[in-house]
């Protein structure tokens, strides 16, 4: 089945592009076809329209949490961003319609894996987008690799997705914990915030984040004056915040996520942590969290983000369009879903194919240039490397509107922000550094 699909794909290549396509076909494993067969195929069916895109449809599945914790981060808004990308592309690729399916994974790896398996087996889906909870993303990318389908992870935080869990079949688009921890910690130490107190969620994710921050702080000449771990999840942070205040550290780093971060920030605000001269550093906080907390609580907080709606004219224009449809400003994840879908569709159009390896190769060799990223590069391990932004949450008096919440302090170049390939544990790039 693969061989025939490949043969028909070769057939429709325009003669001018033929040689390049053949050479790329020979380069890619499993797709190597004898040169003569490809040429013969071209001669035999020249002028006959061929189905290069399977089922004559490009099918995109959107899998995300639509009803739980991550609803505001990705959820229905992410689906709309994906649809915006499809609409902006014209609803079809080279005359073949684009179909969008969506499902709620309810943050369950079982449900997510089961849905994607069903999509592949029954719907012959071409790409899966969205993907928020890390456990769901890892489960889904395993299946994608097994079934040779493409996936673009936009919402997950775990940097392991392109490290020990990397596959040739998925791309991690928006952010991961590595730049969040490194970007924020390094920038703060450079600015003189050299003594840290860490408040860590007591499970694998928190430990990893804590380790990353500790490394960056000490490497840049700072010290960790104290750290404390709290159970996951926790609602009462008062004793932890009191210890943080007592530690005398300049910076209180929050190595936790979601409701834990929100609760810790609220408690810190009630205890007047910022007013008493300490600063808070959040390591995994999103626009929707800050919006929900309010500027009174979140002001002064420094964090790293992959994108912000108010960066430049282009981001403002797109966000305005999004706002009109959703009555919310887009988060970086939602913007990333738009950007990645558009990049995917461009690659499908350019190669006139929806074959995973072909499209993935094309996506990798084309830099990402849109309202989300400038000269973003998709590495062999699947990491999309793009600039990150260190921001500070505005005080209520500085803010001019409901969504005007960040001051961009610094642009962190992608190469500096993300984990270097030399340190990667990904089997695809190991030893290439």
């Amino acid at each position: 089945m693969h061989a025939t699909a490949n043969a028909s794909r070769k057939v429709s290549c325009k003669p001018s592009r033929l040689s390049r396509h053949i050479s790329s076909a020979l380069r890619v494993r499993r797709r190597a076809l004898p040169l003569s067969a490809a040429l013969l195929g071209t001669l035999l069916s020249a002028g006959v329209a061929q189905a290069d895109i399977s089922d004559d449809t490009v099918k995109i599945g959107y899998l995300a949490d639509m009803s739980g914790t991550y609803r505001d981060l990705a959820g229905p808004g992410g689906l709309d961003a994906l649809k915006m990308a499809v609409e902006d592309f014209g609803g079809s690729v080279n005359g073949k319609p684009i179909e969008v399916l969506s499902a709620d994974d309810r943050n369950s790896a079982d449900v997510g894996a089961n849905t994607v398996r069903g999509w592949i087996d029954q719907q012959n889906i071409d790409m899966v987008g969205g993907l928020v909870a890390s456990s769901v993303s890892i489960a889904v990318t395993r299946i994608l690799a097994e079934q040779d389908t493409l996936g673009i992870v936009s919402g997950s935080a775990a940097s392991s997705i392109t490290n020990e869990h990397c596959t040739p079949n998925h791309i991690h688009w928006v952010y991961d914990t590595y730049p969040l921890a490194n970007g924020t910690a390094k920038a703060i130490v450079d600015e003189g915030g050299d003594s840290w107190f860490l408040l860590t969620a007591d499970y694998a994710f928190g430990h990893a984040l804590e380790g990353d921050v500790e490394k960056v702080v000490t490497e840049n000449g700072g010290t960790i004056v104290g750290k404390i771990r709290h159970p996951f999840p926790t609602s009462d942070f008062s004793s932890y915040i009191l210890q943080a205040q007592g530690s005398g550290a300049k910076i209180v780093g929050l190595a936790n996520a979601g409701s834990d971060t929100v609760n810790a920030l609220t408690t810190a605000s009630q205890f007047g942590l910022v007013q008493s001269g300490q600063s808070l550093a959040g390591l995994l906080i999103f626009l929707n969290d800050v919006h929900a907390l309010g500027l009174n609580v979140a002001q002064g907080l420094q964090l790293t983000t992959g994108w912000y709606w108010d960066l430049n004219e282009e981001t403002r224009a797109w966000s305005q369009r999004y706002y009109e449809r959703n009555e919310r400003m887009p988060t970086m994840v939602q913007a990333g879903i738009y950007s990645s879908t558009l990049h995917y569709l461009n690659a499908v159009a350019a190669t006139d194919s929806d074959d995973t390896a072909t499209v993935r190769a094309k996506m990798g060799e084309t830099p990402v240039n849109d309202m989300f990223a400038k000269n973003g590069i998709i590495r062999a391990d699947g990491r999309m490397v793009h600039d990150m932004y260190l921001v500070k949450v505005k005080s209520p008096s500085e803010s001019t509107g409901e969504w005007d919440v960040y001051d961009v302090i610094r642009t962190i170049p992608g190469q500096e922000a993300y984990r270097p390939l030399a340190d990667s544990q990904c089997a695809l790039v190991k030893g290439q550094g």
Partner: protein
Amino acid sequence: MAVLEQEQERGAASAGKASRRITPLGALYLGLFVLGLLAPWVAYPVFLMKILCFALFASAFNLLLGFVGLLSFGHAAFLATGAYITGFLLAEYPGLSPVLGIMAGTLGAVVLGTLFGALAIRRQGIYFAMVTLALAQMMFFFFVQAPFTHGEDGLHGVPRGELFGLFDLKNNHTLYYFVFAIFVAAFVLIRRVVHSPFGQVLKAIRENEPRAISLGYHTDAYKLVAFVLSAGLAGLAGATKTLVFQLASLGDASWHMSGEVILMTLLGGVGTLLGPLVGSGLVIGLQHQLAQSALGDWVSVILGAIFVICVLSFRSGIVGECQRWLEKRKERDEV
């Protein structure tokens, strides 16, 4: 509620003695069995396997709630223990037979069930539920922290392997028949237990425990055995689920899972043998359908509403109500 059972006993008696004709209930089971054999050629096998795994889980839970009257709010701990042990062993030792992996997972759940059971059966009613919930939450935190479970990320890439070195379980249809065989075996075991003298004592304990004690039964021992049996079967369900999805995640251990199995059992009909099967089919089917429809973000609300309606208007569940209706019709016919 008891009509099916009575019918069954009567059927068994008549089949055992003079006539060998098939009873209506026997025909129903046979029909379901044939349906189960044909189903993967019509519906999507992975979806069916999910229903079977949860039906087994709900049946195990129902054994305790429906036939001993003990409401456990911590069955997720057994499901997760089975899932994690099997997943860990199969992922770490790739040559291991899936059967051995599943057996190890089930055994793990049995051991845990013995520990939990010994503590929990000392209390009744809401206290029993709270003790099991507390113990299950302890297990949840253990799974969050333990390195072999990979915490939030979950345990991934569990190979399905080969059955007896003959059948490749990577094929969805082959795996389906394997899962179906496990389910049928467990179902037959549960049915056997419920209709055995041991099961009669369990029902006596459910109806009136002091009376059972006064008749000389050592009820704690009976309750413990039932608890361990239920835990083991829940572990078997978890172990099988790991093989199907090739992963074990924290979701299996969370208290939501314990709640979901209560929902399935009550919807289908508590204390009936087929109720958990119907309930799990309904809940999983609804989740599956709704998740991909425009109502996607309303799944929890809709399931909640159905649960409320069920509890308010037909308390004995779908299968329970059907049995009541049959019973009434029979009485009317006799009159």
